[in-house]
């Protein structure tokens, strides 16, 4: 296993955000983490990154505990989310140069140019981040996340602010990266069609607990409790949300 999440629990006072979550990720796999808002997806990702200390349980990446091998693990992984930002006065290039230094990327400028081209934002190179649209900002975040050729990529709703065409391009790019570089990806999204196409396996969270995990079709059958020929994650998601509201 490339990532082992074992009995992960996070309590904030009396509130339990993540409750005994366990799952593993095989090398080269794209795994989706789904669940309604407040299900514990982002907290789980933050614990995987070592940004939040778990109340119980452990995260092992490349066979090492994130708490004891933080530096070497984070050197080989990367993360992006449209909900985090960059220093807004700095240009796109300046921001990426800073992160390229942090990850000790060789031939920084060449790598940055390649990433800007990959995400179709070469024309934004010298623009201050403050003047970017949400979608452009998201793509800068993705370029940052690819700078160190990560073995593991954590993407928290990376297509949330993108228009459908750009979101489709990003999805295709991520699948290409996984195919060509064997990058392992943990992906959260509210776009169920995207998750169905990209992810071989899904961990479905609700109220901080794993309520199902498996392939999209297995998740569909487990939560809808009926035989289906095709995955129907949209329906699954709506069922979970409605049950949550009625409860």
């Amino acid at each position: 296993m490339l990532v082992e999440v074992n009995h992960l629990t996070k309590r904030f006072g009396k509130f339990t955000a993540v409750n005994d979550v366990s799952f593993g990720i095989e090398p080269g796999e794209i795994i989706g983490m789904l669940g309604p808002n407040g299900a514990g997806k982002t907290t789980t990702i933050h614990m995987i990154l070592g940004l939040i200390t778990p109340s119980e349980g452990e995260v092992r990446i490349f066979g090492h505990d994130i708490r004891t091998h933080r530096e070497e693990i984070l050197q080989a992984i990367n993360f992006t989310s449209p909900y985090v930002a960059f220093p807004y006065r700095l240009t796109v290039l300046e921001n990426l140069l800073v992160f390229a230094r942090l990850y000790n990327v060789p031939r920084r400028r060449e790598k940055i140019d390649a990433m800007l081209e990959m995400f179709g934002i070469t024309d934004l190179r010298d623009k201050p981040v403050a003047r970017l649209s949400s979608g452009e900002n998201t793509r800068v975040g993705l370029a940052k996340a690819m700078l160190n050729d990560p073995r593991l990529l954590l993407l928290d709703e990376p297509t949330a602010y993108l228009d459908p065409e750009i979101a489709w391009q990003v999805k295709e790019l991520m699948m290409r990266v996984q195919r060509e570089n064997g990058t392992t990806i943990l992906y959260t999204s509210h776009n169920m069609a995207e998750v169905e196409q990209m992810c071989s396996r899904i961990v479905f969270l609700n109220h901080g607990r794993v309520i199902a995990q498996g392939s999209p079709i297995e998740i569909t059958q487990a939560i809808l409790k009926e035989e289906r020929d095709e995955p129907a994650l949209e329906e699954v998601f709506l069922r979970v949300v409605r049950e949550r509201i009625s409860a």
Partner: protein
Amino acid sequence: MKLHRVMAVIVRHCYEARRNVDRFMDMVYWPVLDIILWGFFTIYLRQGNQLRPDVVSFLLGAVILWGIFFAFQRDMTVGFLDELWARNMINLFSSPLGVWEYITGLICVNLVKTLVGFACASAIAITAYRFNIVPYLGAFLPFILTLVLFAFAIGIMMAGLIVRFTTRIQTLAWSFAGLLQPVSCILYPIKSLPRVLRPVAWILPTTHAFEGMRQVLAGGGFSRLHFVWGMGLNAGYFAAAILFFNWIFASARNKGLLVKIE
């Protein structure tokens, strides 16, 4: 600690200083304004023959040295605030960057920024008020070191408080030094303070730095006693600041504050 990551922090704050007018103002405007204001005051005092010649040196020397302390303490805290305002903390600390690598980078940038402010203020003092700090620099250096180390300790403590209480207490970056100002005996000797405040003044390295500076300017030579007291106190504050910051940073990770602070 990896040099390339420290360099990344330095580069990040250099870009910020280049593009952010506020940082330029902090670096140059305030030290220059202070020295101009106090310089005019010494001119007024000279005109009335109400002044011993060495008092001009006391005043201008003190203003320059206080500028060093204030700027260094403020910039340590504002460095962290810049990351909060930019919502960049998650990006930074989901990278292999360690918090002490970040602080080391910040110290390097702030040393340069403080030096620029010091040079500007000193140049004005020489040209406009005929007060040349350069001949005193050798004897002042130990006291400048005392001030910088104390500013560093205070800056780390303030940064720790900001990690814990976020931008709600950001005003401390600019105001905390002001709280120390009256009891640091910058412009007057410690015997001018009410008796009740003197013990407080003695436990501040800043007081020892300014008492030492006055002894140099009065021709009494380098005060080993004030230097040793200043550095001894600094060792205590410094150790406390590091322990405090490590504890509060671990606590922030535990409470999930690192991903929420803005």
